[in-house]
């Protein structure tokens, strides 16, 4: 073997032509073995069979907005008139028709709050105040009864504002609660640890549906007669309890990943428990917990559709109700596709944002 002495005299060369470019990519990714080549061909065949009829139904044979249900049925393509006809009902439920600007503004407020909270530059104390003010504004808009707004009972609420309120308020209350539960589960104080573990394991061991049933059916039995806690509020509390238990476990995973040396360094500098957690441990643990947390956020957002079983009309509920109109019976594909897209936009945005946040937090401070 000859000694290879690098003198810096060997010029840079281009890699061999067959290892770069689209042809190489195709070969490496789609045809790198006989069974992958076979799979690729089968999938291309399947797509070729499925996509044209789908596009045909979605676009080419679709009925323009304004056609009657009878024409739609006769033609066979997608009937987007159904969506345009039922749009306000699906989005706002049974909220009084001429007052529906109120749930619309509610949606805007909630989305605006979420969007400003996404920017790390705004992670300041005033953001908490903005949330309190925003939630208060939402309550005033939805209930009314003040500032000349007519009173609207919350049994009339429905659609997207209900879905957003259940999930956004639910998550923003459950998140801090879950941090406390995760810390409690790792506490050195046995009483706090036992309470946290019991709570988390009890709630995680029960299906969300049964928790909702308990909140709506069983819970009132324990209340003295005459005392009535609102059904929506009970569902909201059930969601918070459920989400908190799941997120606590995601955060515990992050806490366990922090090296012991970080706790020791915080202690050795004289920081007390809460200072150490707030400044040293939690910022790192939460950053690690982002993927499982967002996973919980997304599934929780979609799980709000389960409130339909206790008689609340969230987005899925109003879509189902819209289908029960005799004149528009049978257009379930359009209805579910439409709300499917709405759910997807929200969930995909959460996923994208979490990826960005992960990148931002990772930048610079890798060990």
């Amino acid at each position, binding site marked *: 073997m000859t000694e290879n002495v690098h003198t810096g005299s060997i010029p840079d060369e281009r890699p061999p032509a067959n290892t770069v470019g689209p042809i190489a990519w195709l070969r490496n990714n789609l045809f790198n073995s006989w069974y992958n080549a076979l799979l690729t061909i089968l999938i291309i065949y399947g797509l070729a069979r499925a996509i044209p009829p789908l596009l045909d139904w979605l676009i080419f044979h679709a009925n323009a907005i304004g056609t009657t249900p009878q024409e739609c049925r006769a033609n066979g393509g997608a009937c987007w008139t159904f969506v345009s006809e039922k749009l306000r009902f699906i989005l706002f439920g049974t909220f009084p028709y001429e007052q529906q600007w109120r749930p619309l503004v509610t949606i805007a407020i909630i989305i605006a709050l979420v969007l400003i909270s996404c920017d790390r530059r705004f992670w300041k104390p005033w953001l908490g105040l903005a949330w309190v003010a925003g939630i208060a504004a939402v309550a005033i808009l939805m209930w009314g009864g003040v500032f000349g707004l007519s009173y609207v009972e919350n049994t009339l609420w429905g659609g997207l504002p209900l879905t957003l309120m259940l999930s956004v308020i639910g998550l923003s209350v459950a998140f801090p609660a879950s941090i406390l539960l995760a810390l409690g589960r790792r506490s050195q104080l046995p009483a706090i640890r036992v309470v946290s573990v019991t709570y988390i394991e009890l709630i995680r061991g029960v299906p969300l549906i049964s928790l909702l049933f308990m909140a709506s059916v069983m819970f009132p039995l324990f209340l003295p007669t005459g005392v009535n806690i609102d059904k929506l509020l009970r569902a909201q509390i059930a969601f918070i309890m459920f989400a908190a238990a799941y997120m606590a476990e995601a955060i515990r995973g992050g806490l366990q990943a922090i*090296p012991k*040396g*970080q706790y*020791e*360094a915080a*202690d*050795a*500098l*004289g*920081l*007390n428990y809460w*200072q150490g957690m707030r*400044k*040293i441990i939690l*910022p*790192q643990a939460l*950053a690690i917990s982002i993927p499982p947390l967002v996973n919980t956020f997304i599934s929780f957002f979609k799980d709000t559709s389960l409130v339909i079983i206790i008689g609340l009309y969230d987005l899925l509920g109003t879509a189902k109700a819209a289908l029960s109109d005799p004149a528009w019976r049978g257009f379930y594909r359009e209805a579910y596709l439409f709300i499917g897209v709405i759910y997807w936009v929200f969930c995909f945005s959460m996923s994208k944002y979490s990826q960005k946040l992960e990148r931002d*937090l990772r930048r*610079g*401070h*890798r*060990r």
Partner: protein
Amino acid sequence: MSMAEAVSTKRTFPAGGEVIRCQDVHKWYGEFHVLRNINLSVQKGERIVICGPSGSGKSTLIRCLNRLEEHQKGNIIVDGIELTGNLKNIELVRREVGMVFQHFNLFPHLTVLENCTLAPIWVRKKPKAEAEELAMKYLKRVRIAEQAHKYPGQLSGGQQQRVAIARSLCMNPKVMLFDEPTSALDPEMVKEVLDVMIGLAEDGMTMLCVTHEMGFAKSVADRVIFMDRGEIVEQNTPNEFFNSPQSDRTKLFLSQILNH
């Protein structure tokens, strides 16, 4: 100041009163007796090097001095405060006792400057500007001020350890504990950290240092403590310790680390 001068400034008698006192300290990990009958008194301004074979309890001993480890028997009094289960007292002691770890334990999500200002701001309640000024002073002193806005992950091991020293100094500690501060470093980085430590010693900082750097012990320490199997076997001035060790265990240890 050169190293030779550092040797000449060494005190022959303790000055300025007692900072740490351990009386009959014992510690167990479960059934395992890690510290046995430790009696130790450290005077203000003393520079002490603790050495011994691995597993001899030397790290455990200095970790007991700021209660990162709990002792089960005996008394430890630091800066006039006895270390017991009392959390308030433990925090008070930790404020006055700086610690430098083998693996630096810098906070990776904070910049170098933020690492240094965190405790002064939150524990000493200093205004941010004042804390930053203080931090820059100590970062200059460990010769790393130009890296103040980088994250620890962007620095070499030696640089990180110097930041860790500056972070401790920002609390103006009365005592500094060093737990094998150069053991995790690449050989070419050991000197830059030892130089900083020598500088601290010259300025009269009370130091307890667990280390295998015998050169550092010879030139800087007022006293060398040798531990084996959880006991203090021998303690003496570096001169006596290295030239005429008393016990056989010390002789064996010295022959093992010095002859190769």
